[in-house]
């Protein structure tokens, strides 16, 4: 074995480790699905909570966390994690979801979604950037964290880091924070929405505007109801689509701020390069569904595979969780992230209520 091959094996880059990782994800997903089926029919699981309230995103995340713990205890987590493809499974599920969404719904939700996305991205970005400045955080970490909170979590953090040439530790830290905060929010926000008595459309818009990572948005929507899942996905997808614009603006701003060799070279091409292409697949599938050329609606095989794809993504979220990065960065960025999350949550609730109750009501769903 050459030294290069040895390094690849140690880092888990060998194809066999990818495959083992994928098999682990599949087995844990099956376990989560089996538990979901067992508890779903129970009318009183515990403390009066009906089994139906505990949807598959919860069991997927818990199965992932259990797998995460076991793999870390046995010391193989770092080798097989290449098979944990949260984003890939999620995007496959989202495109398949498009095959069950009518263009009329997409169109009626899109106008409110675009306005909500513009207000949320601008407000949350500048609030977080300002707050992080008050806490004395590094400018590049401020940019990565602000983008992750205001746009779409993990993928936004990666895009922003590319634009401002941030350190790898910044990206790892922010993406860890995103997942650590998103997992409990995925479970708690539907409970709070139910407690407030939000209709599914408003709740969906709230989840889509507030929860950072798309997988958790879909999870919260799924727990709350079918319409909430659709609206949450449309709102979040609109926000995702704007990442290219944010990445371009950041590259321009940091090209003026930076000096020396590590200077960014802004180009309008970044808008297309960073544009999440799965959005095109989502819209194309919706067009085909609206023309009655395909059917991914309720009870179809496409819908079942979509649910499996989402379940695989939720399991991967649990498997990828790591808290060791917190020790390196200290408490200040964590406090900034949490305060900004509270700001994001309250603002999204207000904006979603105003937009989808008064300006763009979705009462025809």
């Amino acid at each position, binding site marked *: 074995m050459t030294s290069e091959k040895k390094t690849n094996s140690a880092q888990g880059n060998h194809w066999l480790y990818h495959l083992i990782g994928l098999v682990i994800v599949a087995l844990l997903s099956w376990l989560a699905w089996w538990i979901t089926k067992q508890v779903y029919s129970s009318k009183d699981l515990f403390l009066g909570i009906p089994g139906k309230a505990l949807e598959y995103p919860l069991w997927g995340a818990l199965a992932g966390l259990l797998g995460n713990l076991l793999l870390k205890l046995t010391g193989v987590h770092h080798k097989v994690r290449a098979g944990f*493809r949260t984003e890939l499974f999620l995007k496959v599920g989202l495109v398949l979801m498009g095959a069950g969404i009518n263009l009329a719904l997409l169109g009626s939700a899109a106008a409110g979604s675009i306005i909500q996305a513009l207000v949320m991205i601008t407000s949350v970005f500048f609030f977080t950037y300002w707050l992080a400045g008050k806490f004395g955080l590094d400018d590049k970490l401020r940019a990565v964290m602000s983008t992750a909170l205001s746009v779409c979590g993990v993928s936004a953090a990666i895009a922003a880091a590319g634009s401002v040439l941030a350190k790898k530790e910044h990206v790892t830290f922010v993406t860890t924070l995103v997942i650590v905060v998103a997992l409990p929010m995925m479970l708690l926000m539907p409970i709070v929405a139910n407690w407030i008595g939000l209709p599914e459309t408003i709740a969906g818009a709230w989840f889509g505007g507030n929860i950072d990572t798309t997988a958790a948005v879909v999870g919260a929507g799924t727990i709350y109801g079918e319409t909430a899942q659709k609206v949450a996905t449309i709102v979040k997808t609109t926000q995702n689509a704007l990442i290219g614009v944010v990445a371009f603006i950041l590259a321009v701003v940091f090209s003026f701020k930076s000096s020396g060799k590590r200077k960014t070279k802004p180009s309008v091409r970044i808008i297309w390069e960073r544009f999440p292409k799965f959005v095109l697949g989502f819209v194309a599938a919706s067009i085909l569904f609206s023309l009655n050329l395909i059917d991914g609606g309720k009870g179809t095989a496409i819908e079942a595979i979509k649910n499996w794809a989402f379940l695989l993504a939720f399991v991967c979220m649990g498997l990828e969780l790591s808290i060791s990065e917190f020790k390196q960065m200290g408490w200040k960025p964590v406090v900034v992230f949490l305060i900004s999350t509270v700001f994001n949550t309250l603002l999204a609730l207000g904006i979603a209520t105003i937009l989808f109750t008064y300006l763009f009501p979705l009462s025809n769903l």
Partner: protein
Amino acid sequence: MKSRGNISEDWLSVIIAFGIILLAILGIFGEKGLKIIF
């Protein structure tokens, strides 16, 4: 950091999803073919 890292994954997700849709249209998945339950 590779700036194009996520782009291939994005297109891959679209290809996989439309592959699944095509198989469903051809009847490989669904009532007449392989039944997928959730």
